[in-house]
């Protein structure tokens, strides 16, 4: 496989950084080609998702076709053909981990991650937002890498809690990883979920949060402040680590700790322009990038060329 690391010469840190770089490059390329994309999310999330897939999560090999199958119709009693995007994360087994992906609008970033770790073919990314494809703009549970339908934000953590509770009851050793965005901490359901995770001592849940401090309307400190997040979460009974979200070692370290009865939270403080300084000019409107002019698009093309040559 093209992206397979040569383990003799590359450390996991090298591989994680390569994946993160690849995520940014692929999402930038996509954004240029389509004049639009969730590009800042790729810049903030790249290291975290790369670390989860390369280092943290214990997943089996993908069980899905490299090129995603078309939309099989919605789930229901009359549709035996529905499939889950979780197949890209490998089989379900007592000892294996699960990923519950909460911010469904980060789908493009997740798809790029799957390509970089060899779970999806690059052609899969070309199906993004195409009619009849499962590689949807705001993914649902048939979309590659997704197990739940969480485009209505803050619903994933509760579902992960139910899955984790069931796994505790069964005595599974595998963990349930949840990827979240910081905006979801404005929703009441998130706090209901933390309350329940702590109450039932679901320490088999590990949550990585992309704290990029931006949301659709702009800076979170202007729209609705959520800080101090660490203190709030600790008060809710979580075991919280605040890390540099672009430092792969810092991101991976909390996952190495033995569970202690508390749900684990890794607050990955990130910059939505990390690795692509040009994006800084768009402050504070970072949620979705659409170029204002062909000249601007050209400047991003140049950035892409530089990024590609760095690879």
């Amino acid at each position, binding site marked *: 496989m093209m992206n397979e690391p040569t383990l003799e010469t590359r450390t996991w840190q090298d591989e994680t950084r390569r994946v993160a770089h690849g995520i940014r490059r692929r999402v930038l390329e996509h954004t240029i080609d389509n004049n639009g994309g969730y590009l800042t999310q790729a810049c903030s999330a790249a290291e975290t998702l790369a670390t989860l897939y390369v280092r943290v999560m214990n997943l089996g090999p993908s069980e899905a076709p490299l090129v995603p199958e078309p939309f099989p119709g919605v*789930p229901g009693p009359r549709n035996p053909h529905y499939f889950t995007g979780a197949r890209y994360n490998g089989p379900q087994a007592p000892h294996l981990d699960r990923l519950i992906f909460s911010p469904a609008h980060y789908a493009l970033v997740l798809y790029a991650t799957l390509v970089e770790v060899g779970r999806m073919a690059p052609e899969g990314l070309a199906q993004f937002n195409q009619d009849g494809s499962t590689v949807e703009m705001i993914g649902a549970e048939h979309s590659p890498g997704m197990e739940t339908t969480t485009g209505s934000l803050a*619903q994933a953590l*509760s579902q992960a*809690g*139910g899955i984790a509770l*069931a796994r505790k009851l069964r005595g599974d050793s595998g963990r349930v990883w949840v990827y979240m965005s910081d905006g979801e901490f404005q929703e009441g359901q998130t706090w209901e979920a933390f309350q329940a995770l702590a109450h039932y001592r679901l320490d088999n849940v590990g949550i990585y949060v992309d704290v990029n401090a931006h949301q659709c309307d702009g800076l979170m400190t202007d729209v609705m402040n959520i800080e101090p997040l660490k203190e709030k979460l600790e008060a809710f009974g979580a075991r919280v680590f605040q890390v540099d979200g672009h430092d792969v070692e810092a991101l991976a370290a909390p996952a190495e700790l033995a569970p202690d009865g508390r749900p684990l939270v890794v607050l990955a403080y990130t910059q939505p322009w990390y690795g692509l300084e040009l994006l800084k000019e768009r402050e504070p409107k970072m949620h979705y990038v659409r170029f204002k002019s062909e000249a601007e698009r050209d400047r991003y093309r140049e950035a892409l060329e530089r990024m590609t040559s760095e690879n």
Partner: protein
Amino acid sequence: MEIVSRPHARNLIEWAKDKPEVVVLSADLTGSCEVDDFRDTYPDRFFSMGMAEQNMMGFAAGLAREGYTPFIHTFAVFIYRRPYDQVAMSIAYPNLRVRLMGFLPGITTPGGVTHQAIEDIAVLRALPNMTILECGDATEVESVLDVAQAVDGPVYVRVLRGQVPRLFPKSEPMRKGLARVLRRGTDLTVLSTGICTEEALRATAALAYRGVSIRHLHVSTLKPFNAAEALDAIAGSRYGVITMENHSIIGGLGTIVAETLAEAGLGKKLVRIGLNDTFAHGASRPYLMKKYGLDAMALVRAVERLTGERLDLTEDDLAEVRLDSVHSDAKVEAL
């Protein structure tokens, strides 16, 4: 007529005995939803989720994905209003086997407008994958669990609690998609659901005495609705059909029947008894049924409207009707 005390409480424990996949989730209304004995009997299968319904729906969804069958227990109103998005996206879209046990439906609660689920059927009926059942007596409370459990998808149940009459013999359990034929006649059809069936029985007995020939069906499966059965009854009715439900006249049984008639091109008059596009308020059930026109007298008035005849029945006439448990001839019909 037998009155059964807390039918769900004992029945659920017995029913769940050999079903380790059945778990109960409660949002701080455990005694109020008659699952306190379940909690004490199977403490490892009971999960207190606190007053946090949105999260409870997500936990139920996660448990269902892992092969458990969560039975959510709370008041009907708290199942669909606050956590509607969670019911829709976390449970209904993936067609998960979650059972939403809604207690105190409609005006059966004195808790007032915040506690009265009056548009729950309207709202949840519009959700793809959702099955909707409503209990009309103790026998149905006891047998609805089997009906719900056989559904491969989410089920919403309107459950009755406390002192519940047994209108139908224990030997005649609820059956999915099959109404109970409680009376046969040719002047008009009455379709009733839930607690309105008891009221309807009071009225139909008195009306029959006055010579009105009524076909009375008790409906417990609201979705999917057995249109053929209803149409067959209504087509044979001279004056038309009356629906009677403990719900808004918009979106529930009345609407279902209206859609059914229109789609079949069956031009029969329809009178909808129910909350007439109004909220209710906190008071006793008999008071509310009278005030909002959901009682036996409301059916008498509807029959008068439909037939154009004054029947001169008084409240006393209706109160005198003695209700015994009614054998449905649905079984015969199904053969």
